[in-house]
């Protein structure tokens, strides 16, 4: 097998939350609590989960964007370790890994023309020697993402949400990255436009061989775009497998509950669907669990789940659940 482009090992990100009272210790938010995965060149890893499961923090932690949070574990990008780097050292790795954000309104500078926005990363990393080469590359990128290069001198507000997301993708591609981290990149778009952007991302992968870490709460979108999918709950990956395998054959009780809660656009399917109902809500991430963090809501909880920490199994279909420990 090829060597992974990105290796994440036992990643932990803890935030200090504000004190809840005078003299009381500040609770620690365990946003990401021991996450490991590999991403291979030209492939897509999807990370799914509900709000607060740590998927976005994971995305940011990979690219050293978690600020003052306490971070632990190792991240290897294209063979070099990057998790311990300061901003200066990280800079030269940023050309290899870029990011596309959720909000196409907030992530483009409103005072720059889109031509300048797309050109800026090329300038930062001195990709091209002459202005003319840069301009030609901007034209090529705009055509690549389906924006007419005639509009190069327009400003972001003159574009719709879907077009802005295309501009954000062109900017990410400007330095020929090997990896793009997409954090809810299509979540703010209408269905018909969302499908356009998903198809664009998949075409680009096919033509350019770029790898994605695709973060989304939308199980259906991830199914379409990802080769491998990791399901996260309370800062951990509870199941990680080949996308088809995971959706056809979900093992972890949380994955099964999540899938059965997600409605399918098919009225007959929904009637026949066998619902695994989850009671309650995701608990606060400031508790340290002795056992499985999902045990309290798990419909199939075993007596020792609350005291024994499950480990992610080593098979191709990885599961972190005591129900499958022997399997």
């Amino acid at each position, binding site marked *: 097998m090829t060597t992974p482009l990105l290796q994440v090992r036992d990643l932990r990100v803890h935030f200090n939350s504000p004190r809840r009272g005078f003299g009381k210790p500040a609770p620690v938010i365990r946003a990401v609590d021991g996450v490991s995965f590999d991403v291979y060149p030209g492939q897509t890893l999807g990370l799914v989960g*509900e*709000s607060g499961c740590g998927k976005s923090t994971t995305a940011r932690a990979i690219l050293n964007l978690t600020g003052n949070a306490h971070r632990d574990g190792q991240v290897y990008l294209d063979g070099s370790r990057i998790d311990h780097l300061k901003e200066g050292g990280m800079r030269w790795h940023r050309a290899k890994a870029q990011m596309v954000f959720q909000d196409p309104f907030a992530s483009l500078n409103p005072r720059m023309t889109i031509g300048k926005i797309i050109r800026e990363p090329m300038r930062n990393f001195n990709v091209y020697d002459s202005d003319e080469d840069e301009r030609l590359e901007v034209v090529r990128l705009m055509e690549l993402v389906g924006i007419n290069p005639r509009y190069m001198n327009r400003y972001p507000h003159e574009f*719709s949400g*879907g*077009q802005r997301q295309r501009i954000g993708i062109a900017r990410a591609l400007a330095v020929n990255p090997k990896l793009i981290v997409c954090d809810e990149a299509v979540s703010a778009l*209408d*269905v*018909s*436009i*969302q*499908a*356009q952007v*998903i*198809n664009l991302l*998949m075409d680009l992968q096919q033509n350019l061989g770029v790898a994605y870490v695709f973060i989304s*709460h*939308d*199980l*259906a*979108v*991830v*199914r*379409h775009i990802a080769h491998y999918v990791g399901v996260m709950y309370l800062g951990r990956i509870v199941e990680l497998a080949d*996308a*088809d395998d995971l*959706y056809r054959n979900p093992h972890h009780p949380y994955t099964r*509950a*999540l*899938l*059965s*809660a*997600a*409605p*399918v*656009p*098919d*009225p*007959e*399917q*929904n009637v026949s669907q066998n*619902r695994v*109902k*989850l009671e309650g*809500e*995701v608990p606060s991430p400031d508790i340290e669990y002795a056992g499985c963090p999902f045990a309290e809501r798990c419909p199939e909880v075993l007596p020792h789940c609350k005291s024994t920490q499950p480990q992610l199994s080593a098979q191709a279909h990885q599961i972190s659940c005591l129900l499958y420990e022997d399997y």
Partner: protein
Amino acid sequence: MEFHTDSGVVQAVNRVSFDLYPGETLGIVGESGSGKSVTNLTMMGLIAQPPGKVVGGSVKYADRELLSLNQKQWQQIRGKKISMIFQDPMTALNPFLTVEEQLVEVTMLHMGLSRTEASKHAVELLKKVGIPAAEKRIRDYPHQFSGGMRQRVMIAIAISCQPDILIADEPTTALDVTIQAQILELMKSMQEEFGTAIIFITHDLGVVASICDRVMVMYAGRKVELSTTINIFRQPRHPYTVGLLNSAPRWDQGEEELQAIDGQPPDLLDLPPGCSFNPRCQFVQDACLNETPPLFSLENEIPHQHACLRDITTLKEDV
């Protein structure tokens, strides 16, 4: 319904007609700017005029014309006979009042309950919508509840007078899927208990398929298709509906490429002549460029209305 803006007149809702029957759930689907929310805000008399202006039309509830009501008459109906829940319960609830005060306010006003009766009623309601430790939580403020719990509080307020109609505007869009499933379940059971008719506004076709009896599809302020949920999903007749269904990703079937609808969402200030969907339609004909399509009704056993000039009985096979 028109809006007068600095850049011109926007016809946000254009000749939309539909009926709502007791106890049914009607879904209104469409993308941003299709007019689905404005339709319902207009029905509720909640559009500020100006900038809004109702140019024509009629909304009848139990033989009463709602569009000609004054504020005082409206207050007799809003919250009592017709109530509403919104997408964002944090902005819809008053952050300065406890949940109890917000619940009690409604029943004291509309049902003439005394403070103690209303309080008791409020605790009952919170229990009914599944809030644990209701007696204690009722004295909490909205920010002390999670998103899903706040939406339950909203539902409790909305059903407190057992309204005939509940308008739900994207009530689960901001929620996680497992919580969304809980809220949909709750709305169904409330409907069974009180026989409330629900208008469910959403852009999520999965939610439509799981909760609605009938569906109205809107595009650029117009109704483009209306039929039973099964019919809309099985035999869609408008090219936009077909496109919408084909572009929705499904987690239960993966590999094939999504069929996106080409082009950009419509600009309401600058709609093309003829059918608004014509720049994006793969079946566009000459007539579509000049003529606004009328509404065709197919009166089979199941009524099915659609606004497309092309006879697309064979559309499904074409695609």
